[in-house]
């Protein structure tokens, strides 16, 4: 190895603590970018895999527009010549004793072997068919829970008996149950959630099942689900980009520090006759070694970070859209080259300008070790002008709403960059004021400190910019989450005003007769029978909510965007109210009409009013239960809202009675406060990934400021010695 290169590389060992700090800076940056990208990729690919696996060989699936379907229809399907194979399915999720949610698929093993051939390869125990609550467990889940055939598996709906283990295929934990057992287990006698089909003649089949059913091809189903995730994917992309920006910034800072700290050595080498390109090679070797090591370390760290982030991302998807239990991020050796390239790329980017300056500078200036601070001062105005230009362009981008959201990202990024470039000039302009202010505060050291800020603009501006970026990210994210939370609390106050809520857990359904029982309980003010179902509307998914309009009219205070409480009357007569997002997405304001595919074919609805809603960005249609039953004939209930008059002297007694009756049926009960609390917990979980970005912002601030100040310290080491010689204590160093 050339001695010049050796001289540089030995610094890595000689200044071990600094090398570790630099390595950590690069590793953190790379880990952030890789962790976020991997978790987004894993969550989305798990979702695709799960959909693909659950689809099996099925070309289509048939279901009711809302709610489960009657199994009697299977006889019609069985005799349809367009059907090659079919398999009725109950697709639900249950909660294990450890709190983990898993999917339980109820299938007919004989019909299903043609659809999901992988599952049919598992040896089937006869007890699977005849024993109550018998399930097959996927091998990974069995390993995770340390259970096997013969063991019992406690769940939120009672204990299951494991009769066998089947090969783990998608990474998503899965339980299989015979469909007849599943119908009993979930209280769905004679009903199935959907029928998976292999069709030989789609057109013929579709013509017979057009009315009252939803027939979707596998691709359509996947596309519909992916469409629901569109906004969330955008959010993930934004977070990934932000992580990448943060990562590159950290690596940039580290590389810049490396170059500056070797300035004097470069000067010595130049004085001995080393060519600029030899020094460049030595620098690049060191930077690439550091960048490569940091990149590889960051790759490993990013992998582990992604396992944590994937859970957060999947939890958010499950909370907001549909059940997703992702497989863990799988290790791939490609992660390391990815980290390496990211580490190298960002290091080269970071060292480009300092190296360019170093190669061009006169050897004597490099020998002096310090950067040309006057040059930074002179350049501050030009840099600020560029910053202003970027700010202007960003504002224009942000002001044009018709542009793609990516331009919005670019605009936001530009704002951050533009403001960062202004810091130098702002510091120069503030310099005189700072001098006066700091002198008054701490005398001469204060004045010198202010002078140093302007004198060492090349470093102080970077530190200020790093702090500004971190602070703005932190404040921005905090106020965004805070504002959403405030809106959510306001929204809960308008809509969720029940005294008790029964049900609400996704694996639960409230028996209709319980609703009837409570409804006629003497003294009860009202019971809202709530049904929430996802339906297709103009090619995308929206939520349909069935409620008792009379009860809500009496006890809630909806926030209205258009219309008001008087609109409950038309809702009782068959009209609907829609959420703000639905109104904006489909331009469906009061008075407009649209049709939904009901059990008897298309049904027309008039929009009576538009309300504020924060439960779905895709849109919500709310109708009276009577209308819902007429159109969809789905009697499923997800929860009950119980309302008792505040002035009723028997209020506590009544509420106690409701609690007792719900408990007898094994139904969960929550007070309004508990219910609100669970929603806020859900909200906080959903924003966990975003909050983790706030943490990242603090990491950026730390490394950014530490890097800039270390650079400054190295450049001014001698000056600090002078301060000490003059009698300044370290605590009073003007820096």
């Amino acid at each position, binding site marked *: 190895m050339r001695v010049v290169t050796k*001289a540089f590389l*030995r610094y890595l060992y*000689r200044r071990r603590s600094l090398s570790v700090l630099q390595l950590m800076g690069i590793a953190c940056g790379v880990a952030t970018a890789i962790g976020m990208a991997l978790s987004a990729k894993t969550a989305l690919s798990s979702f695709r895999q799960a959909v693909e696996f659950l689809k099996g060989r099925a070309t289509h699936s048939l279901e009711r527009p809302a709610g489960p379907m009657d199994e009697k229809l299977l006889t019609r399907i069985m005799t349809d010549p367009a059907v090659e194979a079919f398999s009725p399915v109950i697709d639900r999720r249950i909660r294990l004793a450890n709190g983990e949610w898993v999917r339980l698929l109820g299938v007919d093993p004989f019909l299903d072997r043609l659809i999901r051939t992988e599952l049919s390869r598992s040896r089937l125990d006869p007890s699977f068919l005849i024993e109550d609550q018998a399930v097959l467990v996927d091998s990974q889940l069995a390993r995770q829970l340390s259970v096997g055939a013969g063991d019992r598996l406690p769940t939120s709906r009672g204990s299951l008996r494991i009769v066998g283990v089947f090969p783990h295929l998608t990474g998503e934990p899965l339980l299989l149950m015979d469909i007849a057992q599943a119908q009993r287990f979930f209280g769905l006698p004679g009903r199935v959630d959907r029928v998976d089909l292999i069709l030989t003649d789609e057109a013929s089949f579709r013509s017979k099942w057009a009315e009252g059913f939803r027939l979707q091809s596998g691709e359509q189903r996947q596309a519909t689900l992916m469409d629901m995730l569109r906004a969330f994917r955008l959010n993930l992309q934004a977070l990934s980009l932000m992580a990448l920006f943060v990562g590159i910034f950290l690596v940039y800072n580290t590389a810049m520090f490396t170059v500056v700290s070797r300035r004097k050595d470069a000067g010595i080498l130049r*004085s*001995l*006759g080393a060519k600029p390109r*030899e020094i460049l090679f030595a620098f690049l070797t060191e930077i690439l070694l550091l960048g490569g090591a940091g990149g590889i370390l960051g790759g490993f760290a990013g992998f582990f970070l992604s396992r944590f982030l994937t859970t957060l991302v999947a939890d958010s998807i499950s909370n907001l859209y549909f059940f997703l239990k992702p497989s863990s991020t799988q290790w791939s050796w490609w992660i390391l080259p990815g980290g390496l390239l990211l580490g190298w790329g960002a290091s080269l980017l970071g060292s480009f300008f300092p190296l360019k300056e170093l190669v061009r500078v006169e*050897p004597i200036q490099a020998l002096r070790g310090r950067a040309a601070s006057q040059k930074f001062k002179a350049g501050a105005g030009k840099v600020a002008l560029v910053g202003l230009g970027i700010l202007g362009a960003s504002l224009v981008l942000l002001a044009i709403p018709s542009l793609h959201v990516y331009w919005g990202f670019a605009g936001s990024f530009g704002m951050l960059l533009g403001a960062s470039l202004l810091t130098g000039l702002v510091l120069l302009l503030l310099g005189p004021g700072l001098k006066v202010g700091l002198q008054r505060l701490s005398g001469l050291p204060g004045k010198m400190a202010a002078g140093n800020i302007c004198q060492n603009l090349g470093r102080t501006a970077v530190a200020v910019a790093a702090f500004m970026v971190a602070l703005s990210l932190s404040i921005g994210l905090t106020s965004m989450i805070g504002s959403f939370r405030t809106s959510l609390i306001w929204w809960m106050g308008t809509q969720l005003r029940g005294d008790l809520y029964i049900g609400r857990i996704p694996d639960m359904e409230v028996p209709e007769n319980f609703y009837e029982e409570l409804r006629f309980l003497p003294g009860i003010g009202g019971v809202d029978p709530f049904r929430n179902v996802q339906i297709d509307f103009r090619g995308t998914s929206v939520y349909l909510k069935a409620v008792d309009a009379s009860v809500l009219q009496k006890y809630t205070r909806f926030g209205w965007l258009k219309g008001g409480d008087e609109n409950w009357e038309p809702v009782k007569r068959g009209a609907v109210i829609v959420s703000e997002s639905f109104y904006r997405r489909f331009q469906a304001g009061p008075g407009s009409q649209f049709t939904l595919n009901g059990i008897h074919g298309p049904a027309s609805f008039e929009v009576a009013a538009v309300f504020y809603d924060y439960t779905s960005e895709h849109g919500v249609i709310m109708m009276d239960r009577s209308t819902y039953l007429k159109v969809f004939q789905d009697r499923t209930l997800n929860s009950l809202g119980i309302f008792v008059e505040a002035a009723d002297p028997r209020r506590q007694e009544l509420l106690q009675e409701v609690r007792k009756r719900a408990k007898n049926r094994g139904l969960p009960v929550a007070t309004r406060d508990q219910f609100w609390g669970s929603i806020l917990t859900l909200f906080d979980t959903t924003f966990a990934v975003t909050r983790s970005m706030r943490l990242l912002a603090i990491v950026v601030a730390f490394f950014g400021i530490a890097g800039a100040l270390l650079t400054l310290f190295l450049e001014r080491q001698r000056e600090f010695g002078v301060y000490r010689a003059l009698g300044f204590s370290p605590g009073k160093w003007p820096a």
Partner: protein
Amino acid sequence: MEPVIRTIDLWKRYNQTEGNNSAALRGINLRIAAGEVVALYGKSGSGKTTLLNLLAGLDRPTQGRIEVEGQDLESLGEAGRTRLRRKRLGFVFQFFNLLPTLTVFENVFLSLELAGKPDREAAREALRAVGLDGKERRFPHELSGGEQQRVAIARAIVKEPAIILADEPTGNLDTHTGERVLDLLAGRCRHHGTTLIMATHSPLTCRFADRMLRMVDGLVIEERSGEEKQT
């Protein structure tokens, strides 16, 4: 005799702002012959270091011309000046400027490697010549000031350059060590016919020179030969 170094009306100004005309060098004309040992004598701030830096091509003049071995430094360009430094010039600094991450041997060998003569035995020989054999594997911070300066001298002489420029070579050493270092440096240069230019503010250094150039405020105001200086 053709001079090995010639300067013609050499000026160096810093901070060339309006109304500020602080010139470090003010029109210096100089001729130094091959094999001469010259002391540049003057107070701090008189322009000695600036002149040495310009002669080595580390810095560039504001005005004037420098010729080294008949070649105009300005027209050589950065690549040419670098070539000159690595093959024909040796530099000894007041604060030694050894690379802290290289051992004593490597600091000396580096010079040979840059000159394109990576001869390990020559590096050992140079260290023996300055009395540092046995300390090859030490790092600069493990040596005394005098020893570090001797490493710097070994680094300068090892490639047998035509010219050695020494900026206050004893400025950081005690009198006894300084004398030994100067004896070593001047003796070696005389033995090899190397031109040696030493910037100094110490009369001690002048004793080792053939010729003394006195610098005041950026001007060479006095020249004395070795004989005159003795008197």
